[in-house]
């Protein structure tokens, strides 16, 4: 059984008040997320990530298609007991404290008072909220609210967790904590489905990703598979490289660009057309020493840019106006 499965999930909105035109927020998304996976749901802003998550939470209803979580249709209250959800830029009740908010949400799961106290205390410890837990939420910063949002999402030890932009509003330390939290959830056997437009998040965490642009799924699979064949060159860092050797290699077309890093210390960009070991031996023969050699992959950013450039401009239904 898959943790999450969608079949041709589609959502149209009507935009414009006087002459409503359909706007395709999500176009026939078919996706499977296996249990125990950390699944990255990637795409630029406005790609339809949040729409998908809202459809999975049944905050909005699909125009067509279907979605299941843990083998049950979304919206099944029994399923809600087994999942957690962090909305994008979460916001809660101004006049409740962090403790009260979590206690309230825990009560919706039917936990007894003692159990609620225990869970709330340990969760707030886990997301790093200390004495502030007795403050009303209107006094919380964005990053603090994000932490509260994460806490409420994992309140019920969920089997599947949905995080919409979990890193947003957090400082680098907070981001690292969230990454560690996601890995802990995975180690406990949970499934984590998170959306992000920040690439490094996905690269360090995900086993598989789906990439969304303009409401359409443009790629999915293992991140390494998706990106490996996209190696578009090499970066070679050497020291002890003489001007003459550099000039010769450049005229031969072996070096696309050289960036001086210090005296006789260069970062060299090799085009994909040359074999890096050949260039390396050629340079070491002239007295240069190797510092590092790394493949240059297309970044997700480039990928987004390319996909967006390829995608059709018009995002309506194509019927014209």
């Amino acid at each position, binding site marked *: 059984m898959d943790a999450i499965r969608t079949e041709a999930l589609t959502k149209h*909105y009507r935009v414009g008040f006087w002459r409503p035109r359909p706007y395709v927020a999500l176009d026939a998304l078919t996706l499977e997320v296996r249990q125990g996976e950390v699944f990255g749901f990637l795409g630029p802003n406005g790609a339809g990530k949040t729409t998908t998550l*809202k459809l999975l*939470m*049944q*905050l*909005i*209803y699909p125009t067509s298609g279907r979605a299941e979580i843990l083998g049950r249709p979304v919206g099944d*209250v*029994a399923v*809600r*007991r087994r*999942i*957690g*959800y*962090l*909305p994008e*830029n*979460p*916001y*809660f*009740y*101004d*006049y*409740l404290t962090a403790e*009260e908010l979590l206690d*309230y*949400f825990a*009560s*919706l*799961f*039917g936990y007894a008072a003692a159990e609620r106290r225990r869970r709330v205390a340990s969760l707030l410890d886990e997301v790093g909220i200390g004495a502030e837990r007795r403050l*009303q939420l209107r006094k919380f910063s964005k990053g603090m609210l994000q932490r509260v*949002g994460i806490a*409420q*999402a994992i309140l019920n030890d969920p089997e599947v967790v*949905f995080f919409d932009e979990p890193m947003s509003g957090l400082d680098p330390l907070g981001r690292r904590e969230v990454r560690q939290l996601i890995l802990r959830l995975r180690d406990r056997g949970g499934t984590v489905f998170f959306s992000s437009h920040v690439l490094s998040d996905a690269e360090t965490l995900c086993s598989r990703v789906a990439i969304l642009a303009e409401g359409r799924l443009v790629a999915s699979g293992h991140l390494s598979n998706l990106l490996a064949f996209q190696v578009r060159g090499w970066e070679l860092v050497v020291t002890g490289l003489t001007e003459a050797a550099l000039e010769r290699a450049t005229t031969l077309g072996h070096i696309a660009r050289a960036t001086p890093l210090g005296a006789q210390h260069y970062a060299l960009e090799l085009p994909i057309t040359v074999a890096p070991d050949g260039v390396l031996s050629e340079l070491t023969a002239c007295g240069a020493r190797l510092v590092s050699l790394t493949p240059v992959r297309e970044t997700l950013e480039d990928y987004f840019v390319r996909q967006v450039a390829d995608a059709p401009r018009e995002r309506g239904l194509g019927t014209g106006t």
Partner: protein
Amino acid sequence: MQVVRHVALSVFKESVRDRVLYSLVAFATLLIGASYLIGQLTAGQDVKIIKDLGLAAIAIFGLFIAVFIGIGLVWKEVERRSIYSLLSKPIRRHEFILGKYAGLALTLLVNVAMMTAAFYVVLAYMNTQASDALRAVWPAPAADPGMLRAVALIVLELLLVTAIALFFSTFSSPFLSAALTFGLWVAGHFNADLRNFEVVVESKTAAYLARGIYYVLPNFAAFDIKAQVVNALPVPPTYLLLAAAYALVYIALLLTGAVLVFSRRDFK
């Protein structure tokens, strides 16, 4: 049911924190200040005026709480997106609506109960200040428990107003909801005129239409027995029962409507 209770309690807690109960201070100040001033202004008979004022103030304060919290109850959750995390919990949308309603109803009940208590304290004090001769000619004692019947109908009216405000708040902005709710409240008081519309118009269609509207609009005038209890006129128990049944059925209708609208809504 448990879920509804928890939602209701959180609404209550939040509205208490949101300084709704400050209105009670305003109420008590108004009543005590007025009872002093009115004693100076009028030639005696201040107890009747304090009773009128107290009951009217309970109704008005309650009305404002019902409308201004009622219109924001659902709208605020949607607007601020707090509903996103809430609805991902094991809670059905109708439980959310019923919980919100119950929470505001609880807030109103506590408010009205405290205002009524303050009201009776002021009246009991006035009773100690009155001469025996004066007490003898009052149509009803100062702290007359019979006035609780008027308070009970005020509560029913407020519960109905709350249901109206909640219903509008499931699909429209607070400003529009407030306008619509107050509009219905005013129209509900002119109701009796609609029934006898054929007296003023020639057209039969217009008269039928008016009569139809008369039956559909909430008849708020039915909940007003303030003058009757203050003047110690009889109010038959069947009247109270009928008014209560009317309010409850109307509330059930509005809440059903609110649930139907809300269950189909997309939270963009």
